[in-house]
């Protein structure tokens, strides 16, 4: 099957809205930790709508490419087999981990993903703050190997949707910790708070989609510690609420840097965010090093 018979994300939209209303009410009446700022919320929701439109505009290219790859597949994997769904669940989640890690560690893909991190709040509306430029950035190419292996494009699309829906509920401060076994295996609000934090100790961590095991396996897991509450947003928070600035500021930053010094274009485009030829700017790596120097922590132990 090529085209997905349903889109989990579309189906979940009423749930998204109800959950946001519930979280606001819980925050309002002091039953849970939840803060919403009006312009921040407006930005998040509008980013979500814009992302859907951008996705529709670019969807044809992505779908056509995926079908073409599937036509040259290695195997034919049945869509009605339980083992196939287990396999696509694991492989899609692994793909997501690497997509997400690249999206944070390489500036050209960060330019597309940074919008999701510009809110200084961490609430359910933040989950809807999605990219408009993902199609251009080409990160969708990372999912093509699944179709090449033989997973039907519809199956991959459904699993991607399930992953996105799963990731909605973890964007909250209302839930402190899940049971230990759940925290060990799955991505949770606590793990993802760390991912959205701008504290130096928490940078570049917890890239998981559904399963946190990938971060544990690949050494990017950092637990949330109560003595250092997460502060949200980007290392250098945006100075305004301008929607277009939010969407394009990092792309514009790359263009300015490349135009100013074309011979360093590769570094500016594919280096880590904050990379500069003379090292005068901060990257996550340098920020963490400074933090470790301040707290005197053993540089090999990220838990401290």
């Amino acid at each position, binding site marked *: 099957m090529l085209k997905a018979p349903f889109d989990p994300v579309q189906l979940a939209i009423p749930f998204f809205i109800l959950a946001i209303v519930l979280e*606001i009410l819980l925050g309002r009446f002091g039953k849970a930790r939840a*803060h*919403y700022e*009006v312009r921040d919320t407006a930005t998040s*929701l509008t980013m979500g*709508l814009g992302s859907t*439109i951008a996705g529709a505009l670019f969807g044809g290219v992505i779908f056509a490419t995926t079908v073409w790859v599937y036509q040259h597949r290695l195997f034919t994997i049945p869509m009605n087999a339980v083992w196939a769904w287990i396999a696509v669940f694991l492989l899609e989640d692994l793909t997501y981990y690497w997509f997400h890690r690249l999206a944070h560690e390489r500036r050209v893909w960060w330019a597309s993903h940074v919008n999701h991190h510009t809110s*200084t709040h961490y609430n359910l509306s933040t989950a809807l703050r999605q990219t408009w430029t993902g199609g251009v950035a080409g990160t969708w190419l990372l999912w093509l190997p699944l179709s090449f292996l033989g997973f039907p494009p519809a199956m991959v699309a459904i699993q991607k949707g399930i992953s996105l829906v799963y990731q909605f509920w973890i964007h909250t401060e209302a839930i402190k910790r899940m049971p230990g076994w759940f925290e060990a295996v799955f991505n949770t609000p606590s793990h993802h708070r760390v991912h959205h934090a701008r504290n130096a100790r928490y940078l570049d961590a917890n890239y998981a989609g559904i399963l946190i095991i990938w971060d544990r396996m690949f050494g990017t897991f950092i637990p949330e510690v109560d003595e250092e509450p997460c502060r949200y947003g980007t290392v250098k928070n945006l100075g*305004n609420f301008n929607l277009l*600035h939010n969407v394009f500021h990092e792309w514009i930053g790359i263009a300015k840097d490349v135009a100013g010094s074309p011979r360093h274009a590769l570094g500016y485009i594919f280096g880590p965010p904050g990379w500069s030829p003379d090292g005068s700017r901060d990257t996550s790596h340098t920020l963490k090093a400074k933090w470790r120097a301040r707290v005197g922590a053993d540089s090999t132990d990220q838990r401290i």
Partner: protein
Amino acid sequence: MDKALLIQLGGSAAGIAVLVGFTAWMGVARPTPPLDAESARALLALEFPDQRPDRVWISADGAAVIARDGDAALVLYRRGDGYVARDLPWSAIASLKPINGRVRPRLSDARPVFAVKDDVWPPREFA
């Protein structure tokens, strides 16, 4: 453009407006009382942990802070219910001209407005 798509977009935009209105009505933003000396110092320590500013000025409305650390100006201002931190050369701050009790430093992505008492600039904290 497809009529169904237009209806869907219009409906979505209306839904966003309702939800944003609901957020405003509920008033669940973080409290941001005017900054005083202690809270300003705490915020500076959080945002500029490697710097030790010796002089600190708080705007007349308590919504912004400028601190001096040698040739650097550390700027903090309220945006929504949070704060934005920027550092810039001290000369860019020293050369500001107050107009109607306001100074507007030029940052890379914003021109925030800082309330100044008595139109005096630089304020006595930086004299």
